[in-house]
């Protein structure tokens, strides 16, 4: 793509590339300010690179109540320059917001690094949706409130457990490569993982957190990113205590929603059943409370019958057993004819056809809208109903609360995905289960927790279960599923349950 050819309305980007020239001088860490107007122009364009990165931060204070206790924290907003592992040359200027508990001893205080995926996404979703001190109250899945949804205090923040650092990938948010690199330099599975490792190294060095227990929290593509980072960090000698995988896409080769034709949709079946149950269309029916029991029926149906039958169809064109088709129709709410015609059932077909005339969400299949989309161009109701609120509130929050202003546009989602080098370890598309296994081989104490939503049609929970089952019966690996979509934390009851489970996970990882 040519510079500036994106359709984004780049309101204030002064020019293509945002500067050039060399950057041989090491970055300078300037004193923080209470309220920082960053005049640097940031760009998400592939060819963009900074010539004069800064590390000035805005420092603000806040309080949040968890349980009956009030926690005072410091929010640090700005950039840090990652330095290459071997030669220490400046690589990229990462935009981040760090929440650190006042009065805590950094030596023992855990620190967690959060990032979304895409690739190309900023960390707006985890930052404003999950476990920071403030969260967007979307009311998922009913969304009965009036948009834009409000930003509220987050009684389930993880700040009582860990310091929290929300960092944007290069080319998203206000993160940008430093010359002579450009954003595109870091748009690939391996280079991106190394860049995140080097941001974390820099954050740790600048903030004297070498001895703090370290955690990663990545969502979606942030899951495979975490696996790559974890392996690289362990090799670099910076041990992790734990990795949280939020709805991860660990293996792109096991998810037919990412790329179909030769990939099995087997892992989706339980999600189809859970979604059908939500709308009262499954046989047997199941309330949310009965969902674990229903899923316990659908896992063996998937693993023993459906997934093997899909493989037989794809590899030898063997038609499925009609009795199996009848059973699939019952549990999923679709018809036998629909299964016959689409036996390797893609999520896009399911979310259009479960309820004719109604479109289910990709990220949260329980969120629906009347289907007015042209075939093949279906919107995602669970995205369109929350996206504008996230966008609006992020702008307000950065400037109004965190005291960081810039004339640049915060890029929620860049065009990086169209340039991304997906190859990894000899595969055309990444399978990062071996990276996670390598991290655990280097650090036997490393704990992994995967959290998924039963109603997520982007990264189905049972696919994650199957991916992680490859690690064997490892007591350091756990999977927990919740009522909800991709972003399980948006739902009140699930976020509360997640907080309790995460607190326990941190406790176990810190033993």
């Amino acid at each position: 793509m040519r510079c500036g050819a994106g359709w984004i309305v780049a309101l204030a980007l002064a020019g293509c590339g945002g500067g050039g020239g060399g950057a041989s001088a090491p970055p300078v860490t300037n004193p923080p300010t209470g309220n920082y107007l960053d005049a640097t122009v940031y760009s998400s364009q592939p060819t963009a690179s900074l010539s004069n990165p800064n590390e000035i931060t805005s420092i603000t204070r806040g309080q949040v109540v968890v349980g009956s206790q009030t926690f005072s924290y410091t929010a640090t907003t700005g950039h840090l320059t990652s330095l290459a592992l071997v030669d220490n040359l400046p690589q990229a200027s990462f935009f981040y917001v760090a929440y650190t508990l006042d009065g805590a001893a950094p030596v023992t205080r855990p620190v967690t690094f959060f990032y979304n995926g895409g690739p190309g996404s900023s960390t707006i979703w985890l930052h404003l949706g999950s476990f920071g001190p403030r969260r967007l109250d979307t009311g998922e899945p009913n969304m009965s409130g009036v948009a834009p949804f409000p930003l509220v205090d987050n009684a389930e923040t993880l700040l009582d457990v860990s310091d929290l650092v929300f960092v944007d990938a290069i080319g998203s948010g206000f993160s940008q490569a430093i010359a002579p690199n450009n954003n595109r330099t870091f748009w690939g599975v391996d280079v991106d993982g190394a860049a995140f490792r080097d941001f974390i190294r820099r954050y740790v060095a600048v903030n004297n957190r070498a001895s703090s227990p370290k955690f990663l929290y990545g969502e979606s593509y942030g899951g495979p990113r975490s696996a790559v980072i974890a392996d690289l960090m362990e090799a670099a000698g910076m041990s992790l205590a734990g990795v949280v995988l939020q709805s991860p896409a660990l293996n792109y080769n096991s998810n037919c929603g990412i790329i179909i034709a030769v990939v099995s949709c087997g892992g989706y079946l339980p999600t189809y059943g859970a979604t059908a149950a939500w709308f009262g269309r499954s046989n047997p029916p199941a309330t949310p409370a009965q969902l674990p029991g229903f899923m316990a029926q659908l896992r063996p149906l998937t693993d023993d019958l459906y997934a093997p039958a899909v493989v037989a169809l794809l590899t030898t064109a063997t038609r499925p057993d009609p009795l199996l088709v009848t059973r699939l129709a019952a549990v999923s709410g679709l018809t036998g004819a629909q299964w016959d015609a689409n036996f390797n059932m893609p999520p896009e077909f399911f979310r259009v056809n479960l309820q004719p005339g109604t479109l289910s969400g990709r990220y949260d299949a329980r969120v629906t809208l009347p289907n007015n989309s042209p075939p093949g161009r279906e919107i995602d109701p669970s995205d369109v109903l929350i996206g504008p609120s996230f966008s609006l509130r992020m702008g307000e929050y950065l400037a109004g609360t965190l005291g960081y202003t810039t004339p640049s546009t915060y890029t929620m989602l860049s065009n990086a995905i169209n340039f991304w080098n997906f190859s990894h370890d000899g595969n055309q598309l990444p399978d990062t289960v071996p990276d996670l296994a390598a991290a655990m081989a280097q650090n036997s104490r490393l704990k992994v927790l995967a959290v998924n939503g039963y109603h997520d049609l982007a990264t189905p929970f049972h696919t994650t279960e199957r991916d992680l089952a490859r690690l064997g019966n490892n007591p350091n690996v756990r999977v927990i599923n919740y009522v909800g979509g991709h972003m399980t934390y948006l739902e009140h009851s699930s976020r509360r349950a997640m907080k309790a489970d995460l607190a326990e996970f941190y406790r176990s990882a810190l033993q």
Partner: protein
Amino acid sequence: MKTTLMLRALVTIALGVLATGAAAQVMPAPAAEVPMLDPYVPPGARPKSLRVPAATQGPALEAQVERKLRTRFEAAAQGQPTLTREQARAAGLGAITREFDVIDRSRRGAITFEDYQRHLQEARAPAR
């Protein structure tokens, strides 16, 4: 799979101009350049003929892990059968650098991949 690239309609650009109280600085609202599809591989980036790798587990997965670690080790050793502490440090292998004396049982000042492997296996032993 039907492409959903045209989902651009869902992209949310709130063009409200936001001003800070303190700096009165005009701050553009966040914006997205492509549809929010994660995970996703755009049609242009998809392999024309996808070779789906085996979902390794057990010994096959262990062999993959060993290959990853061995490749990294050998790259740092620059073609030599053994790795020195300085070579490990120069390659950014901080864990090996830090634990070099423990790995180098024979005090030769250089370790083999098998030395490193044994060290990792001992660390995984239940006795710890």
